[in-house]
């Protein structure tokens, strides 16, 4: 499905080269993969590299066997990669329905568009015609962002910390949304998350720290190590609390 081959990403900081990702090799075949690890470890950068928002300094990205390293964001989206931002973007004038339709690629019937909103726990009639502007809360925007990904229905969906900014009540719904996606999706979901409950429903878990893949394996293999490792555990607990 997705393969990262020797991906490096370097930036220049205070006239010094700094490696954000260091020779990352990763194969994603499972349907539900959680990526976790300390803040600043390179998780979001990796997600942006997969979506084409950031170009790697070196390395290759293969999607369904095809080298997509040089493809634009648009071309990758058309090939079937979706990306839910950690901080959703606001648009003056564009409505929730506009964005759901753009995500789907063609105008949807009102009923179907509403169905996507209901799936993420939003009362469709209250939201469908609202502008995606500053009047929506962070949690509402996150749910709309997720609804857009569901409406796209692509082979690979990447979510960057979908739980960030969502209250506890909504978080329970969010878990149900991802459980539903896991059961129904015909492809792969990658979720960057610090939440144990999300890690708990993953098929496999990848740990990225300091720009490197430090752990990779099935949930049964990786999660117990994370929960007993004091450093990883405190990271997780900090996020949960």
């Amino acid at each position, binding site marked *: 499905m997705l393969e990262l081959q020797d991906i490096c990403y370097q930036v220049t900081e205070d006239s010094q080269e700094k490696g954000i990702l260091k020779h990352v090799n990763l194969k994603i075949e499972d349907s539900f993969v959680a990526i976790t690890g300390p803040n600043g470890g390179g998780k979001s950068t990796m997600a942006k590299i997969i979506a084409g928002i950031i170009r790697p300094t070196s390395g290759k990205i293969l999607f369904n066997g095809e080298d997509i390293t040089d493809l634009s*964001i648009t071309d990758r*989206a058309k090939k079937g990669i979706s990306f839910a931002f950690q901080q*959703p973007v606001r648009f003056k004038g564009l*409505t929730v329905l506009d964005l759901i339709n753009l995500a789907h690629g063609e105008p949807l019937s009102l009923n179907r568009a509403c169905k996507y909103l209901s799936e993420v726990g939003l009362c469709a009639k209250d939201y469908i015609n609202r502008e995606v502007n500053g009047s929506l809360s962070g949690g509402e925007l996150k749910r709309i962002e997720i609804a857009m990904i569901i409406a796209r229905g692509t082979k690979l969906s990447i979510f960057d910390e979908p739980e960030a900014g969502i209250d506890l009540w909504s978080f329970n719904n969010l878990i149900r949304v991802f459980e539903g996606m896991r059961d129904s999706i015909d492809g792969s979901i990658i979720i960057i998350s610090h939440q144990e409950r999300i890690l708990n429903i993953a098929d496999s878990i990848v740990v990225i720290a300091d720009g490197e893949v430090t752990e990779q394996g099935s949930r049964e293999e990786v999660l117990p190590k994370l929960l007993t490792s004091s450093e990883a555990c405190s990271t997780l607990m900090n996020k949960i609390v």
Partner: protein
Amino acid sequence: MEQKIDQLQMHMLEKIADLHSVPEGAYNLRSNGGLAGRNTTANIDIVSKEDKPGIDIIIKPGTKNESVHIPVIVSQSGLKDLVYNDFYIGEDADVTIVAGCGIHCGGDDTTEHDGIHAFHIGKNAKVRYIEKHYGEGEGTGERILNPTTIIHMDADSYMEMETTQIKGVDSTIRDTTADLDDGATLIIKEKIMTHGQQYAETNFQVDLNGVGSTANVVSRSVAKGESKQVFNSKICGNNECYGHTECDAILMDQGHVNAVPSLDANHLDASLIHEAAIGKIAGEQLIKLMTLGLTEKEAEEQIVSGFLK
């Protein structure tokens, strides 16, 4: 003398008033400086002025759910059309007025329409006023539209004005003044897009004279190419009142926007706010839409059309 509506005029009517045929209810169609059609109803009378070009639109008190269309079309290159339209809206009326002007300039001479509209809105009356300006044509002559709107609002009246100029007008100076009595509410939504070498100037002046009067003046604009826009909006609070003015502009290419909101509070209980934001399309907005499969150009078009919707 009455003229017939030809295909070109029908096309222009569609652009400025969403009309696909002669409108229902009261209407007055002005074409190339003359009358091309008129209809009145039991509650809405339209009378030609005798001392100057233009009409009086008289809406009886209590008229509900009726509309008046008064489109203007100029397709004769070189014509300079000036018209005075006065609207008398009776107490407790609730009506929609659709105006607008389309210029089709096929020649090399400057073509111009200056519409001066005065609204006298009676107590407790409610008016929705929609005005669209549009220009097209293969000629090199300039297309100029200079609308003036003067609004007098009696106590507890309500007016919503939507004014739109999206395409094809080379130069426009749009003056709007309003005075509001006790409890009156005025909402103005302006949408402008300029391109090429176009120039658009907007001047709003709202006097909140009455106790509890409210005004909300919102402008959204896009300046493309080398076009220039000036937005002047002044709200004077002369009593206990609430006023808000907002200018939001997107810059593209070498577009230029000068926004000058101004608040003049002459009363301790006047509450006035202004906001202005000018900038190019945010990169993250483009990226978000590109991750949905749109090209950068398609993303830009969606953002602009949503912004001006």
